[in-house]
C-alpha cells in the first residue's frame, strides 16, 4: 500500500509537469489551430533564462517567478511575431512545420549560449522533505502539484469569466464572427503564445529545480504530448487532467510491471482512449443541430 501511494504521489508530481505543458499545447491549438511542436523548447528557453537570472542576480524565489513570468510572456510574443504572424493565411500544416524548425533552432541556440552541461537550479525553494501520511515528497515536488492546480484554476477562470478569455474561445469557434464583434484576432494569437510560454515556462523552471537545468529539458514537451491528445487538444483543462493521468499510469506501470514502461505507457493509453473517443477525453465534439 505504501508503495502504491508513493507511486501515485510521484506520478502526480511528474503528471503535474506534463499537465501544465499540455495546457500550453492546448491553449495554442484551441485558439489558433496550430500544434506547437516547439512548446518543449520554448519551455526550456524560459527555464534557462530564468536560471541565469537566478544565478546572476540571486533573486529570491517569488521574485524570480514573477520576473520569469514576464520574460516568458515576452518570449512567447516575440516568437509569435517573428515566426507565426508572417505565416497567417498559410496552410496549418506549413505553420506546424515552422514550429518543428523553430524547435530544432531553439535547441541548438541554447547549447551555443549556455553550453551542453547540466547545472543544478539552485535558486530554489527551501529544500526539505514533506511527509503526508506514508507519502514522502520533496518541497519542490509538492510545489509542482500546487502549481498545477493553481494554473488549472487560473486557466479555468480566465476562459470562463474574463472578457479576453471569452473572446479567445469565440475566436477558436468562428474567427470571422469574432472579427465582426470587434476582436483583434492577431492580438488573440499573440496572447495565446504568451500564455503558453508562461505556463510551460513555469513547468520548465519547476522541472529544472527538481532535476537540473539541462539541454534535454525539451524532451518533457514530447512526454506531455500524449497528455494533450488524451485530454483533448482543444481543451486546456482536459489536457491538464490528461497530464495527471499519464503521469500516474506511467509511474504505476513502471513500479508494478517493469522498467521502461514509463516511457511508452502514455502512448499505449492514448491509443486505447482514442479508439473510443477520437477527440480526447474532454475534447469538444463538433456540435451539430439538426
Amino acid at each position: 500500500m505504501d508503495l502504491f501511494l508513493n507511486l501515485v504521489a510521484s506520478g502526480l508530481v511528474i503528471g503535474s509537469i506534463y499537465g501544465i505543458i499540455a495546457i500550453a499545447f492546448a491553449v495554442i491549438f484551441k485558439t489558433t489551430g496550430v500544434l506547437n511542436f516547439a512548446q518543449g523548447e520554448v519551455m526550456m528557453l524560459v527555464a534557462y533564462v530564468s536560471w541565469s537570472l537566478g544565478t546572476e542576480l540571486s533573486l529570491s524565489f517569488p521574485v524570480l517567478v514573477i520576473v520569469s513570468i514576464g520574460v516568458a510572456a515576452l518570449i512567447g510574443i516575440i516568437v509569435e511575431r517573428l515566426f507565426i504572424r508572417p505565416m497567417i493565411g498559410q496552410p496549418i500544416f506549413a505553420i506546424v512545420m515552422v514550429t518543428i524548425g523553430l524547435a530544432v533552432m531553439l535547441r541548438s541556440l541554447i547549447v551555443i549560449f549556455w553550453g551542453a552541461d547540466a547545472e543544478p537550479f539552485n535558486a530554489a525553494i527551501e529544500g526539505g522533505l514533506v511527509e503526508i501520511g506514508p507519502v514522502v515528497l520533496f518541497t519542490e515536488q509538492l510545489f509542482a502539484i500546487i502549481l498545477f492546480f493553481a494554473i488549472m484554476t487560473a486557466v479555468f477562470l480566465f476562459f470562463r469569466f474574463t472578457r479576453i478569455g471569452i473572446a479567445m474561445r469565440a475566436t477558436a469557434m468562428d474567427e470571422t464572427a469574432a472579427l465582426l464583434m470587434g476582436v483583434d484576432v492577431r492580438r488573440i494569437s499573440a496572447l495565446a503564445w504568451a500564455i503558453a510560454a508562461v505556463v510551460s515556462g513555469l513547468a520548465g523552471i519547476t522541472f529544472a529545480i527538481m532535476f537540473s537545468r539541462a539541454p534535454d529539458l525539451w524532451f518533457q514537451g514530447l512526454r506531455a504530448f500524449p497528455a494533450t491528445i488524451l485530454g483533448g487538444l482543444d481543451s486546456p483543462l482536459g489536457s491538464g487532467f490528461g497530464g495527471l493521468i499519464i503521469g500516474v499510469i506511467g509511474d504505476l506501470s513502471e513500479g508494478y510491471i517493469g522498467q521502461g514502461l514509463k516511457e511508452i505507457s502514455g502512448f499505449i493509453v492514448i491509443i486505447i482512449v482514442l479508439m473510443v473517443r477520437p477527440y480526447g477525453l474532454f475534447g469538444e465534439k463538433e456540435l451539430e443541430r439538426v
Partner: protein
Amino acid sequence: MLTLTNVQIMYDRAIEAVRDVSLTVDGGRIVALLGSNGAGKSTLLKAISNVLYPEEGEVLHGEIALDGRNLLTMSADAIVASGIVQVPEGRRLFPLMTVEENLTMGGFLKSRGDVSADLDRVYAMFPRLKERRNSTAGYLSGGEQQMAAIGRALLARPKLLMLDEPSLGLAPQIIDQIFETIVALNRDEEMSILLVEQNASLALQIAHYGYIVENGRVVLDGPAERIAGNEDVKEFYLGFSEAGARKNYREVKHYKRRKRWLS
C-alpha cells in the same frame, strides 16, 4: 453616411465577385440590397466590415467610406468601433458558448456598464432570449439564433446595422417578428439599416430605398415603392408573372427581357 464608390472585389485575384458597385446608405434610413444567390451581396457586406481577407477576397478598386473616413484602411475591429456592425449570414453564433456569453461578445469593445445595460435592453426586446440565457447557443432554434445574433450586434451599439439575410430559413411568424424589430430599431433609435435579402417583397415593404444587384453589379436602384412597382422586378423578384394570354410567346419574351435586364 456610408458610401461605396465604384467598388470592385475579386476573390483570389481570379474571380470577380463585385464589379463597379456604388451605393449609399443615408443616416436613419433602411436600405435594401436585393438579388439572387451569388449576386455579390454578402461579399459587399464583408468588404464593408473588412473581413474579406480570410477568404482571399480583396477590394481592388473603388472606395468605401463612412462619413468621409476611408474604411478600406481600417481594421475590422476599428470598423466595429466606428459603429458599423454586421449580423452575418447564417447567424454565425459561437455555438458552444451560452446565449449570454454570445451577447457579451457583441459588447467586446464596450465598457462593463454598457454591456450589462444593453443586456437588459436586448432581453426586454427578446424575452425568449432571457429564458434561454444559459443555454448553449448551438442548440437554439433558428429563430432564437437569429434573435441572439441581432441582440449580439446591438451590444456593439451600431450606428449602421447590416443584416445579411435575416429571414433565411425561418418560419413566417418569426420573420415578421424580426422585421418588426428592424423597423423599430430604425424608427425609435434612428439606426441606419443595410438589409441584404433574397426575399424582395418583404424587404421592400420596410425599406426606404432599394438596390438590386445581379452578377456583381447594381442593375436597378430607387425608392422602395418605385422598385416594387417596376415591371421587371415584379416578374423576376416578386413572383408576379404575366401568365395567361400570350402563353406561347412567354418563354421568348422572358428570355429577351431577362437579357435586357442584365446588360
